[in-house]
């Protein structure tokens, strides 16, 4: 799949320059992360001043009740919003890719809106929306409002990823299944769903990461007791950046790396019988 038989490999100087460029890009991406990890072990309150090796900042993270509470809030919200937005986003993608219906173009355009509008605009919209409807829906600000907001922007990302996968898969496989007396549900469950599973997983991963990362929208729609980890970290920065923030970031980094690895393994395992 990845063999470029028709394209000649660059040679000589071009090849050298290209690989230097590639390494520079990687350096640019990963040097800050490496520094962040190194200084999370620094025994000095000032980020950027090495003060000898210590695990104190990880210990402080473990001992800090507000930090752990914020992390737990973030995880609950990310899991809930990912599950719901994956289902809704996949349904949206199937409808838009497979069916023709009135208003499809409008629906299509509207689906992209959360991707292109600035965070702060969406945050203010959400804030006003929830403040207005909170009263008569009996919705108090907190878990529900944050999760709904995250679902609102995640659906778009999930459906874009799933649609890309759907567009690349062959309709005729599903038709063949139907010809062979599969019911619509069976055709979906045993043919279409496995086909688009890598897309769904990719979308889920994206939704999870976006939810875990979001500061602006969350800050506006959060309620009592529902400060998430990134919002909490942002608040801490006002008091000066200490390596505690590094240690929190490293833990989050490890968690997302583990997630990416799991999804890659899952996709590879399925890859054999799908592609």
């Amino acid at each position, binding site marked *: 799949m990845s063999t470029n038989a028709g394209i000649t490999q660059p040679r000589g100087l071009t090849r050298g320059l290209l690989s230097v460029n590639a390494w520079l890009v990687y350096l640019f991406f990963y040097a800050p992360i490496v520094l962040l990890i190194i200084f999370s072990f620094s025994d000095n309150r000032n980020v950027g001043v090495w003060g000898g090796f210590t695990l104190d900042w990880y210990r402080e993270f473990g001992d800090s009740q507000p930090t752990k509470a914020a992390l737990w809030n973030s995880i609950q919200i990310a899991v809930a919003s990912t599950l719901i937005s994956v289902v809704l986003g996949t349904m949206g993608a199937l409808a838009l890719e497979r069916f023709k219906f009135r208003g499809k173009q409008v629906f299509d355009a509207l689906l992209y809106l959360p991707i292109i509008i600035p965070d702060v605009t969406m945050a203010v919209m959400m804030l006003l929306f929830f*403040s207005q409807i909170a009263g008569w829906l009996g919705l108090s600000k907190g878990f529900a409002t944050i*999760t709904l907001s995250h679902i609102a922007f995640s659906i778009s990302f999930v459906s874009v990823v799933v649609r890309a996968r759907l567009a690349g898969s062959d309709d005729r496989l599903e038709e063949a299944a139907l010809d062979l007396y599969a019911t619509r549900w069976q055709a979906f469950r045993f043919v279409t769903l496995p086909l688009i599973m890598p897309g769904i997983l990719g979308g889920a991963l994206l939704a999870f990461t976006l939810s875990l990362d979001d500061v602006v929208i969350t800050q506006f729609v959060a309620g009592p007791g529902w400060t998430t980890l990134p919002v909490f970290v942002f608040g801490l920065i006002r008091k000066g950046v200490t390596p505690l923030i590094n240690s929190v970031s490293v833990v989050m980094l490890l968690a997302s790396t583990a997630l990416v690895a799991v999804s890659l393994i899952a996709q590879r395992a399925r890859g054999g019988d799908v592609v």
Partner: protein
Amino acid sequence: MKTTRKSTWVGILAAFAVLAAACGGSDSAESAAGSCAVGQVDGDLALYNWAEYIDPDHLQAFADEFGINATMDTYDSNEAMQPIIAAGSSGYDVIVPSDYMMGIMIEGGFVQPLNFDAIPNSKNISPDFANPSYDPEQTHSVPYQWGFTGLAVNTAVVGTDFPRSWDLVFGDEASAYAGQITLLNDPRETLGAALKSLGYSLNSTDEGELAEAQAVVAAAKDNLLAFNTDSADELLTSGESVIAHAYSGDAFTQFLETDNPDDYVFFVPEEGGTRWVDNMAIPFDAPHPCTAHTFINWLLDADEGATLSNWNYYGTPNSGAIDALDDELRDFLTSPDVLVGGLDSVESISDTGEFETNFSDAFTNAKG
């Protein structure tokens, strides 16, 4: 081809309804704050505060004493907090706005008048903090913590024989420390310092005075290491700068982190500087106003006030708490070497309305 449009929408609506139902009804039983008794609680406390401004265990002690739950959520700027309260249904019972924002929120009607019958400990508020300009009748707010803005100096490099004046950063003396001075990256603070050095009010709305201040900052730029707010104290204690325009609480805690705290001094120059005050107030639609009053009253208690300051190391407006402060903190807060020009020389930053744009424009131009 059949479309599944209708069922999709039904599904979405159903999911929404389930979520809404799962979250339960709001428990905002409106109780008139006017009828709250001393020590009465009408539900859990939701505190909306700056990060690391109260010990979580201290907050829990309040919850335990009154048999309720207490949560704290944090914000990183007044501007982030204000729209959330103003939109309504925020769910918070007590908020902690800074002085100028307190004025804006009182004017906008986003906080409710306090019932001082339920806050007998308000007698502990030091006269220095009573009836501030942003709440002249002291009807909507009580002070929480306070601090100064001034200069922090590394005496190991600069020595102790320097003028306790803004000349140290704006005058001829500054050139001796070229490249080792930081000023706050904040229009009101830094232009305010320049205005003070010229003998004007830091809340001046006179365009001529502001232009003079802009010129002072622009001229000082050649001697600067940086305009820096977030790590000004770290730059000082790591040796990259020797004079820093800084906030008292942050500078003081940073000094104590070093191996030789005595090498550093903080002072408000004789011409004066900023005194900021953060305040406790109750949002207009707070779900539990009586709990909010009880919390405010509890924190104004002499012992609780001292516990608060001994943890966050900011100044206490609680005259009863002074004696119970850690010695080093009390010395710092009350030393005449810190507030060189006396209490009359400092001002709070107040909201100048439309003129705020002039400040930010002048600062941008000065930074060039």
